[in-house]
């Protein structure tokens, strides 16, 4: 990998070509708020637009998403210009009006000096609960888990993740990676005894032979055995007792 030097907020910083601005900033202790980026995802969708920064090169400056902007030698990044702050604040206010109940959005709003959304909040919208339609869940399901049980459905304001035709999906293994990845905790996953409820399905959980705690859906074990060839007996014990 080619080593390059870039500037972030006036400071010279070493980076590798094609790393994202966000990655370089975080490695160097420079905070940029972001919701939908995830290190395990190959191509960051850049849909939440919270991680905006200003990048200038050859005298030209533009606002870009830091999560998927590839660094090049000689670029200058500013994470705190007036313009960036204004646009980020606007984006967060829009997210707040969409998901007023999501704690992470409320926190972002406070950090950006927003006291409450000035926009009309439609009660009917609350069915979406806390989802900001960033598609991270579906990316994780496809790229990390590899089952593609959920995808983004519909378009515009109705866009939301879901199983095909909103029917229980046979492809889902109940692993819950979508729920763990979700930045706004919008995906409902309920573990009750030996049953996990997610995406309209119930999954039987396997219990640990040592502590007796249900810890993994059987469907997930089958999937791992099938795709990795790992021995089934490996899952007799939970990670704490292996």
């Amino acid at each position, binding site marked *: 990998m080619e080593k390059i030097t870039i500037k972030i907020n006036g400071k010279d910083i070493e980076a590798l070509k094609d790393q994202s601005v966000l990655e370089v900033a975080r490695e160097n202790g420079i905070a940029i708020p972001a919701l939908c980026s995830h290190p395990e995802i190959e*191509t960051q*969708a*850049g*849909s*939440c*637009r919270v991680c*905006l920064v200003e990048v200038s090169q050859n005298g030209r400056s533009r*606002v*870009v*998403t830091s999560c*998927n*902007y*590839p660094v090049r030698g000689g670029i200058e990044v500013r994470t705190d210009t007036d*313009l960036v702050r*204004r*646009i980020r604040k*606007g*984006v967060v206010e*829009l*997210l707040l*009006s*969409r998901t007023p109940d999501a704690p992470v959005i409320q926190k972002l709003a406070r950090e950006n000096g927003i006291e409450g959304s*000035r*926009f*009309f909040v439609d009660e009917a919208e609350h069915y979406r609960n806390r989802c*900001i*339609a960033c*598609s991270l869940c579906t990316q994780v399901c496809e790229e990390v888990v590899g089952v593609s049980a959920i*995808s*983004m459905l*519909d*378009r*515009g*304001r*109705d*866009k939301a993740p879901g199983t095909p035709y909103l029917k229980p999906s046979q492809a889902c293994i109940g692993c819950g990676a979508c729920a763990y990845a979700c930045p706004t905790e919008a995906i409902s996953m309920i573990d009750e005894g030996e049953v996990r409820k997610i995406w309209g399905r119930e999954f039987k959980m396997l219990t640990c032979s040592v502590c007796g705690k249900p810890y993994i859906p059987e469907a997930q074990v089958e999937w791992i055995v099938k795709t990795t060839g790992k021995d089934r007996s490996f899952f007799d014990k939970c990670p704490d007792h292996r």
Partner: protein
Amino acid sequence: MDNRKLQSVKEFESYRTKIAESRKDEYPVIYVCGGTPCLAKGSRAVAHAFKKEIESQGLACKVELRHKVTGCQGFCSKGPVVSFGNDIVYLEVKPNHVPEIMEKTVKNAQVIDSLGYKDPQTKKRSASFEGIPFYSHQKGMILKGLREIDPLEIDDYIARGGYASLVRAFAMVPEEVIDLIAESGLRGRGGGGFPAGAKWKSCRAVDSEVRYVLCNGDEGDPGAFMDRSIMEGNPHAVIEGMIVGAWAVGAHHGYAYIRDEYPLAVKVMKKAVEDATAMGLLGRNILGTGFDFDIKITRGGGAFVCGESSALMRSIEGKVGEPRAKYIRSVEKGLYDLPTVLNNVETWTNVPLIVNNGAQWYRKTGTQGSPGTKVFSLAGKAVNTGLVEVPMGTTIRELVEKVGGGIRGGRKFKAVQTGGPSGGCIPESLADLPIDFDSLSKAGSMMGSGGIIVMDEATCMVDVAKYFISFLAEESCGKCSPCRDGLPRMKQILTDITEGRGKEGDIELLEELCEVLSYGALCGLGSSAPNPVLSTIKYFREEYEAHIRDKRCPAGVCRELVTFRIDADACTGCTLCAKQCPQACITGERKKAHVIDQSTCIKCGVCRDVCKFDAVRVE
């Protein structure tokens, strides 16, 4: 079919000479326009009448109902259009005109002026393309082919010089072709106006075994039908341009992405690709040069966003048509992440013209920064509407007043909206602005793909902004938050303003949201979406203020804010409004002033529209 395959450039040239020879003594052709508007106005019956008349008189004359084979003769508002070669054109032709046309024009070469165009000012009639302002102020570089060529007959295209640019291009090295296109100054007709030569050059410069050449035929703007008409009317010109482009950038596979709402365009383009392949103009070893290039037709599913380049590419790949961040450009990583050149239908159609006639010839038309012509679909309140082509740099006023014949009903010209839903409104005061890529962007609008909507004084600009923002909110793909969540908020504020709930600060809030979209949205559709709002605030702020402060709609459009009254002095008591009122709330004696009962009036505006004495006032 293989026996038609032409093996070399020489064979192609002699084939052309042969068909051109055989067509010398052809009988006259009567072109009956079969574009959608003409069909709606009864052109099928007109064509049928011609056929019957020819059969009964035993004449050797060929009638082509152009809808079977092509689109548009352009003058949609005066259809059905019937034309004879390059000279004579009859408008609003009815089946009962046919015997007279046969007798006078076909048999005796006489022109029937009464079937021509009546100038609204001079009342003079003319039936020649030259004598009709709608046609005479146009320059038909692109549209000429649509009016003359049978799109289902590849021979017809070849006989008129089609595919000649391939011979020229193959005689050049690819870099020379790119230089030629760069010199011509051709800019992308899809909206952005990016220089085509520069795009091709960067694509060729990328080190890759595979490159793609794509045609964007996903014309999604409401009221735009330029690309559809070209694909339906002259498909081989599009294909020819793509082959030249493929040769120049070194691509061997191409796709034409056509929206499925254009079934005729899909059909015609498919046949054209098949015919060109059968003749050896597409496929393996084109004309024996060793160059391979094929084109596949992909049908779009109807999402507006798929007209955006990166969404279009995902859609061709079979994925959900969503835009991606374009920090790495499509010429480097486009279709299947390989170097790709995407140009729109009209851009490709310009390419053969440039290769055949040279860059200097091309630059003679248009302006320094935007050479060539531009095809527009002229719609709205102009007298004459339809598909038009004018040199770049023509002023808005020339387009509206000369080609468009001014505003209908003697009303005042207020503004034009250019560039589709994410374009902007330009006021009459700036109508002397030349239409080219740069002037329009500077004025806060854009060229877009070429929709022009003419607006008169009875158009409310807040209502216009609301209409376009509603369209965009509906069509937002929903991937990024500013566009997905910002547009519905803007729509809500605009709705409040037009329904009398506007409050101080709304304009500023709209401007704030516009900035968030301009800078924050992921793709070009999102970042240009504020244009309708920003341009109307910029040029018509007082209209917004009247709605918000005085709860008044100056143009008399926003129902919640207007009252319809009959001016007793102007009313002649003709009773027309009373007869037409759907609520039957207009009363009055014949020949005496009428009155509207405000308690039941639904403010539909029918009374104002039908009144011949301008007696219905909107307050």
